[in-house]
């Protein structure tokens, strides 16, 4: 197939592994046994064997029907068209997390995917990508993934084949069909896949008494419930942040922990350049510090249980002080609103927000987080409606599957049904309910009562161990599928590699159990696609969808349902009643883990080692407490707390976080897994979760046990010695320069006046740079600290993972890090993020001190590290003012499993022990583009080279280019009045410049 050229990037696509073997369309499929051989060979986790198999399968493409000598690696007999060995090819696909897809473009090198990036053609993310999707690549090559179906009896664990399973389920399901499916329960993780929905409908038709439940531990169902309450049916709320002037986030982490975060982050950041002196303003009222809170111009820490009251107060401010007229159906709320204005609410003042929202004239957004109760969402809907935001910055789409019970109800029902013995066959499609269901349901015990239980998952995890059958799941990069982004746009999930361990996808397993003739994933997805596509030329439409990575016009249609205003009084009353609940005990708050989401990524070393943006904790979770609460508990960071809540106890170290709401303990879910894969990273907070209050609740008691636990932080926590704090505070304004938008209007060059630099002259002849002069600009206004760049860099540059102990020692290897600083008071601190990678100084201090000249300057100004020459004196690191050099204290690549080596980017050296390394501006990408442009005899276009960090940045905060070209974006940004070089006074002449951070504070805090 000829690749379709678009956007200067060669892309290729293919439909199935089988297709590669077929010479001509319509030719017969390969004999089963040959595929079997290939399959079996792949199941061995040996790269040599993989290559052998690769050679075999590719050669088969040319020589189908020949007897194949398996023992030899043979070159291509004929080169498949459009394929050059060693040339990277890109395929569009999609990654689905908790029912929302991220469109991807995956890079493949000689048949193995090596890098996951966002799909630049997809309007949802335009090439940006979050940490989870990028790190999912590591999961693909994880040798701990399960490799065969396993059948368990109470006595033993028996390894089976897929045929065994197929045989056993044929029996089982024909019996079930006779009973119309009674006794069958399917528990699936959330999925947006149209194919899955189609198969589900088919199953329902065939087995009408079978029950289908959906469960996600980090559920967004409260929003469904809330919208259902005001609109009658559940709706999904969407924001157009690029049009919003005022954004109010109530416990809502719109910029990171939202299915549309990639899109929102870009829209949000685009409105903060103050290009025309205008800038949006973000208010955040939240319990735990989130990146949205850090990006906010005004943030107030408030216990999660009081957020609803805060919304009522906002309504009251709007109605009482800003004359917001509610429709008459809303009734008379007068007394309630006055009392809402009178309640203390920890000193929360929302007058500024209310005024701003009113003045925004419908270009405001009120967003409420998924952990807030349905009523809060309902009130937000009413507020958005009353302010006229709906239609301008807020719109709705109908929720798919409106009938399903909420996730918490579903899981409770499944547990109850199992306990009552109503379930004789349980099929768990993904998910890990034995680990991540609320502790009070005792799901694991109930599961033991089920005669036949089947669990499909990537790993043999906690649930697998309790089920009678475990089926290895195919990774999404190995199997066909489809998924929708948050806005409903369908993407086809196309595989890039044969299942390495012989897994099957959820739709394939569903087809196996529900259809007489199980079909392949490709056939299933294609059927769904063909059934929905309008284009008469389906083959062409399919190819376009595969190439572009999206199905045009498949997004949900916006809806503007009319709210039931008459509910206002009830909502307000109930939300105010929450406020009255007791405050004697602490509040327990559960939330998503930055590293493992709900626990599914606990095995992913990249994510585990990725420091949390706010706490900078890696490998573990902790009980996040505010400074005052910590003082009253007598605990410091690292002190182990014993938490007791509803009769359950958990010991977990505390982490004192300025800006965390006081009397409120935040616990990230998804750590402390018990199965061998993923064990030993943190503490299992699901042990305290109760199905009655899965998000937050009062009634938590905490005492300090007196023991200490060593937490691994990549940055010293904030509450260090007074001297250190003072030293930090003194220099912070020079390092991370920020100003208000007014200051910027008055003096655009304010950032340059923060430091008085002496005349920066050199004592000797300067090095002349000719040709390209690579440089980078990082906009601190745009950076939200989401960590996407860190994972991108890790994947691109073969950066090793060092483990918790070494992180605790300060030996993490990330080439780019996000520095987090606090400013302001400890009670209401502001957080500043600053990405720091090698600045590629023109007067590089590291170069002068290396005794063996292992780090040198290139003509284009890159500070190059010659790994082969490095003897490891580490002097360069000592002399680096930015401390961006990373040393291989051990051989972090000692004998990796063969399969992990497949992950490595072949363009980047894998560094050995005793060698210094650091950011190269992705020199391999620069070289690749230079070669391509050279071959095409044309100059390099601006933006053609993007380092991995810049490529993935959701807010496009990082811009790379040629400073020698005055028209390049980076050169223009360098000319921006906000541009400054950090530590320029050392005369190191960094090639990376920052653009000062702009804030848009409210009137009352302008002076701060």
């Amino acid at each position, binding site marked *: 197939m000829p690749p379709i050229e678009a956007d200067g990037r060669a892309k290729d696509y293919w439909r199935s592994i089988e297709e590669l073997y077929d010479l001509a369309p319509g030719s017969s499929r390969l004999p089963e046994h040959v595929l079997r051989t290939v399959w079996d060979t792949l199941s061995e986790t040996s790269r040599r064997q993989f290559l052998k198999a690769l050679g075999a399968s590719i050669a088969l493409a040319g020589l189908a029907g020949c007897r194949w000598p398996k023992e030899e690696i043979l070159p291509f007999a004929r080169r498949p068209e459009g394929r050059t060995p060693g040339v990277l090819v890109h395929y569009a696909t999609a990654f689905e997390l908790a029912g929302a897809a991220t469109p991807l473009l995956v890079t493949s090198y000689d048949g193995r995917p090596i890098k996951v990036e966002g799909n630049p053609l997809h309007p949802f993310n335009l090439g940006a990508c979050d940490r989870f999707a990028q790190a999912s690549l590591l999961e693909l090559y994880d040798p701990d993934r399960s490799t065969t179906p396993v059948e368990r009896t109470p006595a033993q664990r028996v390894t089976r084949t897929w045929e065994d399973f197929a045989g056993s389920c044929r029996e089982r399901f024909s019996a079930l069909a006779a009973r119309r499916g009674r006794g069958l329960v399917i528990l699936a993780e959330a999925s947006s896949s149209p194919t899955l929905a189609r198969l589900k409908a088919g199953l329902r038709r065939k087995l009408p008494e079978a029950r289908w439940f959906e469960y996600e531990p980090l559920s967004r169902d409260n929003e469904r419930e809330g919208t259902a309450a005001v609109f009658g049916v559940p709706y999904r709320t969407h924001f157009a942040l690029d049009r919003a002037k005022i954004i109010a986030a109530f416990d809502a982490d719109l910029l990171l922990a939202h299915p549309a975060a990639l899109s929102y982050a870009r829209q949000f950041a685009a409105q903060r350049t103050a290009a025309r002196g205008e800038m949006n303003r973000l208010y955040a009222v939240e319990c735990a510090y989130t990146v949205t809170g850090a990006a906010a111009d005004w943030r107030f820490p408030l216990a999660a249980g009081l957020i609803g009251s805060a919304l009522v107060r906002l309504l009251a401010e709007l109605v009482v002080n800003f004359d917001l007229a509610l429709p008459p159906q809303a009734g008379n709320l007068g007394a309630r609103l006055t009392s809402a204005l009178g309640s203390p609410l920890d000193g929360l003042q929302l007058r500024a927000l209310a005024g701003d929202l009113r003045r925004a004239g419908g270009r405001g957004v009120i967003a409420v987080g998924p952990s807030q109760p349905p009523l809060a969402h309902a009130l937000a809907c009413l507020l958005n409606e009353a302010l006229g935001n709906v239609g301008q910055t807020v719109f709705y789409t109908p929720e798919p599957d409106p009938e399903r019970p909420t996730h918490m109800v579903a899981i409770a029902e499944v547990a109850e049904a199992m306990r009552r013995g109503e379930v004789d066959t349980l099929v768990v499609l993904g998910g890990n309910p034995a680990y991540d269901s609320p502790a009070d349901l005792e799901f694991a015990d109930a599961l033991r009562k089920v005669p036949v239980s089947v669990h499909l998952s990537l790993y043999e995890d906690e649930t697998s161990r309790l089920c009678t059958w475990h089926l290895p799941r195919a990774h999404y990069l190995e199997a066909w599928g489809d998924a929708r982004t948050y806005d409903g746009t369908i993407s086809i999930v196309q595989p890039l590699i044969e299942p390495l361990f012989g897994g099957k996808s959820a739709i394939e397993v569903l087809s196996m159990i529900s259809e007489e003739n199980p079909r392949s994933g490709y056939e299933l997805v294609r059927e769904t696609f063909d059934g929905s596509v309008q284009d008469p030329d389906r083959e062409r439409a399919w190819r376009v969808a595969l190439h572009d990575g999206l199905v045009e016009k498949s997004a949900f249609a916006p809806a503007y349902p009319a709210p039931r205003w008459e509910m206002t009084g009830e909502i307000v009353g109930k939300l105010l009643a929450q406020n009255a609940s007791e405050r004697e005990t602490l509040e327990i708050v559960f939330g998503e883990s930055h590293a493992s989401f709900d626990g599914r990524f606990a095995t992913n070393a990249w994510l585990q080692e990725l420091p949390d943006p706010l706490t900078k904790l890696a490998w573990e979770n902790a009980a996040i407490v505010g400074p005052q609460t910590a003082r009253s508990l007598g605990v410091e960071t690292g002190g182990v707390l014993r938490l007791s809540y509803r009769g359950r106890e958990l010991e977990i170290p505390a982490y004192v976080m300025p800006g965390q709401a006081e009397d409120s303990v935040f616990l990230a879910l998804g750590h402390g897994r018990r199965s061998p894969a993923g064990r030993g990273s943190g503490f299992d907070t699901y042990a305290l979760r109760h199905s009655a209050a899965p998000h937050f609740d009062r009634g938590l008691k905490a005492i300090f046990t007196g023991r200490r636990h060593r937490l691994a932080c990549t940055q*010293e926590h904030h509450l260090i010695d007074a001297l250190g704090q003072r030293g930090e505070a003194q220099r912070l304004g020079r390092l991370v320069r920020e100003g208000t938008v007014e200051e910027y209007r008055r003096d655009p060059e304010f950032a340059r006046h923060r430091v008085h630099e002496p005349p920066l002259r050199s004592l000797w002849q300067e090095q002349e740079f000719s040709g390209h002069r690579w440089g980078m600009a990082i906009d601190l206004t745009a950076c939200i600290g989401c960590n996407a760049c860190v994972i991108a860099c890790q994947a691109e540059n073969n950066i090793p993972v060092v483990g918790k102990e070494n992180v605790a020692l300060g*030996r993490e290897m990330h080439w780019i890090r996000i520095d987090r600083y606090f400013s302001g008071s400890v009670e209401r601190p502001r957080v500043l993020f600053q990405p720091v990678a090698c600045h590629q100084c023109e007067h590089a201090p590291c170069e002068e*001190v290396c005794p063996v000249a292992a780090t040198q300057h290139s003509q284009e100004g890159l500070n190059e590290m010659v790994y082969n020459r490095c003897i490891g004196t580490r002097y360069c690191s000592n002399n680096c003012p930015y401390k961006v050099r990373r040393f291989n204290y051990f051989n972090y690549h000692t004998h990796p499993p063969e399969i992990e080596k497949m992950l490595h980017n072949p363009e980047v050296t894998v560094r050995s022990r005793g060698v210094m390394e650091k950011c190269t501006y992705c020199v391999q990408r620069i070289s690749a583009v230079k070669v391509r442009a050279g071959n095409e005899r044309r100059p390099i276009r601006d933006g053609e080279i993007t380092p991995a960090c810049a490529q993935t940045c959701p807010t496009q905060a990082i811009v790379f280019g040629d400073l020698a070209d005055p028209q390049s974006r980076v050169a223009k940004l360098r000319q921006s009045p906000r541009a400054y070089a950090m530590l320029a006074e050392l005369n190191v002449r960094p090639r990376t410049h920052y653009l000062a951070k702009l804030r848009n504070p409210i009137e009352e805090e302008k002076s701060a």
Partner: protein
Amino acid sequence: MSAVPAVAVDNTDVAPGERPPLVLGAHDFASVTDLICGIAERPRPTRAWYVCFALSAGLTGVLVAMVGYLFWVGVGVWGLNNPVSWGFAIVNFVFWVGIGHAGTLISAILFLFRQKWRTSINRFAEAMTIFAVICAGMFPAIHVGRPWVEYWLFPIPNQMGMWPNFRSPLVWDMFAVGTYMLVSLMFWYTGMIPDLATLRDRARTRARQIAYGLLSLGWRGSNRHWHRYERAYLLLAALATPLVVSVHSVVSFDFAVAQLPGWHTTIFPPYFVAGAIFSGFAMVVTLIVPARRFFGLADFVTPYHLDNMNKIILATGSIVGYSYLIELFIAWYSANLYEQFAFLNRALGPYAWAYWIMVTCNVAVPQIFWLKRCRTTPWIMLIAAILINVGMWFERFVIVVTSLSRDFLPSSWGIYVPTWVDLLTLAGSFGLFFTLFLLFCRYLPMVAMAEIKSVMPQSGIYLGPHRGHGQYWGEIPHQHELQAAGGAEENG
């Protein structure tokens, strides 16, 4: 060993203009030879020596094990991290190089300045220099990430066509320490040749005869030999003298040339040299006070010698204390935020305890040497000297570690905690040092016999008004003496 009790005679209290005797007791040339050679000639050393040697050799074994472990696993066995990429290894390196300096100062500079009291202690101190430099040189060699390619540091013509980076202070260091080691070794060995010949002549066993015979290079004590020898010694002294200043200055460039706040300081070269001499003398005192007692050398290492050394300790210690003050003053006066913080952080930050150990040991402790009683009482000076050694080790720790742990960007601040491997390697380096030293005490003449005889009255101390202690080999006659001799004397 015939343990000679410490002499009660006080030769430190002399009237101005008079010179105190440098050898006490009723010694003649033969008794000096007997006493000093006797130590090396004993068939079996004392039980105390065996105990000490067993301990030291055991620690050396630990050192070998630690280095083996380090090479096998990687530099990560130490507590290093980012930002603190240099830790104990570099601290120990600077510490041991500094120790060496007293030996060179005593043997070369005091020689050129005709401080005749040096003869009793110079052999001893030079041996200490050699062993200290061996310990020092080991650390840069083992601390690199890939020791197997360390030879790339040397300017050896190679197939890569690569020279080392001559801009790097580490390359300067390599030259400086290498030169120092070579010159010190030559100087020590050259000075020992006449004494080795004496041992050879007295040797009773075949093995000793061969060993000392080879080492003494056929020395027969002829006039011609003495003449060549004295010229060579003088030249080597002249060569070694600048090294006293240069080596530690170059070592200080490792820090001063870097731009790290707390390292980037112009005062470092003199400050380091003073500190080196300070610590070196403290180490000489630490070694010689027990040695003179155990080996009965009190007649040669008299209270006068000890008094002089302690005065030097007091002087150099005061320079070091002054440097600490100047550092603080300059940090304040610079008005440089990072510089100011670096020094405040030393005194008040997480490593303040190390800083105050350093100040106490290096500035407060030597002040006791204003009292003569302290300068002449062996046990007091021994304790003080040990404390000064501790203080000087901590000085290097403070410079290396505290500066690195908190540099420009607060995000990168970090704490370095040594691991057991760090600690055992440090202990092992002491083991190596003392093992070598005990072997030296066992097999080589601890006091320069030929030299010390020249400062005894029997050598003609009555000749010449300016001589003080008599005709000194290697010394050029004064003009007026030549004239007095009628100009007939040939100038050789």
